[in-house]
């Protein structure tokens, strides 16, 4: 039992240990930022490695904590993402005064996500969700002197609180209607009466808020723009990914009896999301804001995949999130580096980028191509499988809309590429030397972008763990 406990909860335990180590270090010693970063990155690497030890299914604390190979994989993906974010924010953190605190908060949110993913119970889910979002608000404010940063944090915390208010109301209704908080017991009580639909909509809004589904997405761009790049990338990749994992399992298991209803809802929402994300993204000048809207559009595509409600859907989603981790973090890696070293974040600043920084340009370009879904990058495979699983339901209207929206998304990704390669600039970003950690992060990302797609085994493996109905 005890051994099981440690194996089943290994991710959470390790993260907790790291958090307390950092806390103690912060209080007890006076480590330099540099050595702190080395230490943390080392620990995160260990964490990642430890994630691969043992992945049997199991449950603890009376179904409050569930785990299975898929969940382990999901956690590993998040750990990997965390490591990458950590590596690439090194150049920003080096000058920051609250490195340890940053990591504590970051890892707390990661811990929250882990619990959320493993939750077998609405209470655990809620607690995990809050643990993964409240510290994030504080993190969004980590550029302490910047107006935008505090504005972002404010918007985030207000929106988040409001969203969790609605979510809680929904949970309370679910509780009222079913009398249980445990997922496994809940499904049999759900029957699609108006109250259930309403409760589901409220829950959906709560999820939608976290993963930025239109119309619950409005905070996204502002927060992304204002928050430090590291936090933005964290928000856009890890935070979203974790909620997606939960979302799909809640949809596929708890709300399975309402599948017909939520299928249509997701249909509407995905179309709205893709359109809105795309239409806003084409106008953006701030590159973080741009990535925010593009990530909204990506969520739209993910929703399309989710509508497939099959094993294929789950597998494609997890696969896509993995790819998304690599692609989006590669993009954010470059953006973070440029932002940290020069403070420039406008798309127009990237004009003529290729002349001065060919390597960074290629990394960014590959990342954007992957986001756009251009082969041979992994993004192509991810998007292809998502849309394919969406098509499995036979709703070709949705697929056509999604596919045609790819054109718009293609446009704005290429806009950046165009700026990098083709536009002239009076004052291009000067030649930057890439520090070690960000470089490592970029290498990991680019390798991931290329390997994840072309190597069919990755998808096969994920598929073998997935579920559907």
């Amino acid at each position, binding site marked *: 039992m005890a051994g099981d406990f440690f194996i089943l909860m290994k991710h959470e335990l390790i993260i907790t240990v790291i958090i307390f180590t950092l806390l103690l270090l912060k209080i007890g010693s006076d480590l330099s930022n540099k050595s702190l970063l080395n230490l943390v990155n080392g620990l995160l690497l260990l964490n990642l490695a430890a994630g691969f030890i043992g992945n049997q299914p199991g449950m603890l604390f009376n179904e409050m904590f569930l785990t299975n190979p898929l969940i382990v994989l999901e956690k590993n993906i998040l750990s990997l993402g965390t490591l990458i974010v950590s590596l690439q924010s090194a150049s920003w953190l080096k000058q920051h005064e609250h490195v340890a605190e940053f990591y504590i908060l970051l890892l707390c949110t990661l811990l929250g996500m882990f619990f959320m993913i493993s939750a077998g119970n609405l209470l655990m889910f809620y607690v995990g969700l809050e643990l993964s979002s409240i510290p994030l608000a504080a993190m969004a404010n980590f550029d302490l002197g910047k107006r935008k940063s505090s504005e972002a944090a*404010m918007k985030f915390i207000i929106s988040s609180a409001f969203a969790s208010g609605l979510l809680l109301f929904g949970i309370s209704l679910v509780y009222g209607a079913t009398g249980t908080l445990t997922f496994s017991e809940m499904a049999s009580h759900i029957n699609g009466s108006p109250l259930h639909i309403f409760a589901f*909509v409220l829950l959906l809004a709560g999820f939608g808020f976290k993963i930025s589904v239109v119309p619950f997405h*409005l905070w996204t*761009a*502002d927060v992304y723009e204002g928050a430090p790049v590291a936090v933005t990338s964290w928000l856009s990749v890890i935070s979203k990914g974790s909620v997606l994992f939960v979302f799909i399992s809640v949809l596929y298991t708890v709300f399975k009896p309402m599948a017909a209803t939520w299928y249509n809802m997701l249909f*509407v929402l995905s179309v709205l999301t893709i359109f809105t994300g795309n*239409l*806003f993204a084409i*106008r953006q000048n701030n590159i973080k804001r741009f990535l925010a809207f593009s990530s909204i559009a990506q969520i739209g595509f993910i929703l399309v995949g989710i509508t497939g409600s099959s094993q294929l859907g789950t597998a494609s989603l997890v696969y896509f999130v993995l790819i998304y981790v690599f692609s989006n973090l590669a993009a954010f890696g470059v953006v973070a580096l440029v932002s940290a070293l020069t403070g420039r974040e406008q798309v127009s600043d990237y004009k003529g980028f290729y002349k001065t920084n060919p390597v960074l340009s290629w990394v960014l370009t590959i990342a954007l191509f992957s986001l756009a879904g251009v082969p041979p990058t992994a993004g192509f495979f991810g998007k292809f499988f998502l849309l394919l699983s969406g098509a499995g339901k036979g709703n070709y209207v949705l697929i056509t809309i999604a596919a045609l929206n790819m054109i718009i998304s293609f446009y704005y990704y290429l806009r950046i590429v165009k700026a990098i390669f083709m536009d002239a600039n009076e004052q291009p970003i000067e030649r930057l030397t890439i520090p070690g950690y960000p470089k490592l992060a970029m290498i990991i990302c680019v390798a991931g972008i290329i390997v994840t797609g072309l190597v069919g085994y990755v998808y096969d493996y994920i598929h073998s763990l997935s579920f559907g109905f």
Partner: protein
Amino acid sequence: MNYSSYIALIPLLPLAGFVLLGLFGQRRFSKSAGILGTLILLAATVLAFYTAYNYFFVSGKVNGVYQPVIALQYTWLQFSPGMSIDMGILLDPASVMMLVVVTFVSLMVHVFSLGYMKGENRFATYYAFLGLFTFSMLGLVLSTNIFQIYIFWELVGVSSFLLIGFYYDRPAAVAAAKKAFIVTRFADLGFLIGILILAFYSGTLDFGTMIQRLTAGDSSQLAQMTGSTFLGISILSWALTLVFMGGAGKSAMFPLHIWLPDAMEGPTPVSALIHAATMVVAGVYLVARLYPIYQLNVSVLQLITWVGAISAFLAAIIACTQTDIKRVLAYSTISQIGYMLFALGVPAYSISSGTGYTASLFHLFTHAFFKSLLFLGAGAVIHFIHTNEMGQMGGLRKLMPLTHLTFLIACLAIAGIPPFAGFFSKEEILMTAWQSNRTIYYIALITSGITAFYMFRLYFCIFWNKPSTHHNDHGEGALNMKLPLALLGVAAVVVGFIPFSQYVPVDGRAKEMTIPISFSIAPVAVALAGIGIAWALYYKENQRPQQLAAAFGGLYNTIRRKFYFDELYLFITKKIIFNGIAKPAAWIDKYVVDGLMNGLGIATTRVSESIKALQSGRVQAYAIYFFGGVIALAVVFIYWWK
């Protein structure tokens, strides 16, 4: 009996010359290209004559009938089983006759050009092009397959283009070359569609098979083609008309004749070869090739008759007013080809004995010699005095005695004065017309008179009229220019005596063709009258021609401006095709189709701009939208969309 071994060389030798001179000529053979080309062609000519000898006198006849011989054939492009473009060599009286004509005239032109084109910048290229043309023309006449003929048809077109545009830096030459190509291309469109129709219904592209299938009385293909109609006209008529359209284009028949006079921008020997003796008669040859099929279709034959007759007449009239000697000759060519065509067509009006066919090809044969002679003579003149304008010539008979003599022979030949070659062939044509349709006969007769008139107008203007103002600085030309004139002069006299109907009859069975002397009186008289008028007007320099022109006034101008055909075409191309179709098409593409695509992009950005207010930056508004979204979803999915 195996002909293939050497007959294939006849077209291939010039081709080899083309490749050799085209690739290396300018660098390696810039001086010797002419000799090289001529020698190659000489070889080809010898082979051609040998073939002709062999065919006509040794082995061509089986049981008294000239058999078509497929000397060589291989599949070039297989469309579907049974339907393929074959490349091959077909020997029958007509093709062998053409073989002789083409090689001989071409050889003459090669030789003549040695002097005429001497010192030209692109001397080797010129010979390369001549080689290409000769190859294409030989390929054309030897075709076994209707698509083969089309292929070489196009190739002669392009060689003609290249040669007309030989002086490429002269805009007029370029324009003429373009015009020639495009007009004939337009005609070829008809040809192509005609081929498609014929091929579809007869199920073959091979001449022999096609003729066999479409002439046999009980053939299902024929029944199908005559049975089905399009716009009230039987498919067969459509097909034959369209094929004839190709022929008419290449032969510069009314109303597609406009390119030929302009084509005179090319070097004069080229005009002699292509635009007088060989390529332009391809139309006649084409109709002759398919004659068994045409024979069965009266309406198309009538069409051919009238096209031929009108061309002959109109061109003759126009020729009377032209002052550029080459243009006069060009119109005369049109006129003579008109003769040949209506000779082919006119038997439609009566039960024919095949005399039209023979007469036409006979005229083709004789015409090749005297017309190329005329052109080469004109070339010699032009070479001598460096102008084409009649007005600047006169009194050259002393300076260019040989040219004068041969030119006179040629003029007499074309005027139909016995015993020159033209007399015999023209008599046969007139005879055929007389037997079939009198209207045509009278038109032909008048045209013949006019022909005599304008030819002698030309002759007098060049060699008599006024005393020469030119001084003899370089003589009449070297041997290489004189020799062809002499040879052709001889030919223009003697070829008329060949009993043509024995060798080139319509069905391979030799016939006797006799023309009573009494019949010849009228034509010869008319011709002499024409010569007489020309003598009266142009023998000496005087004011009568101008007075006459003034007397006719508008009519004269209309004719001199070639009945405003060029203007009409210009109107059609510029105003209708360019401004009416092409411009709108380009406009639509730029503004409508492309505009639609760009418009989609613009619309997207517009929409994007217009909804930006949703992202107002106010967190309270966000919350309201958030809640609005929740309520909307709930309402929709609870009450409407269950």
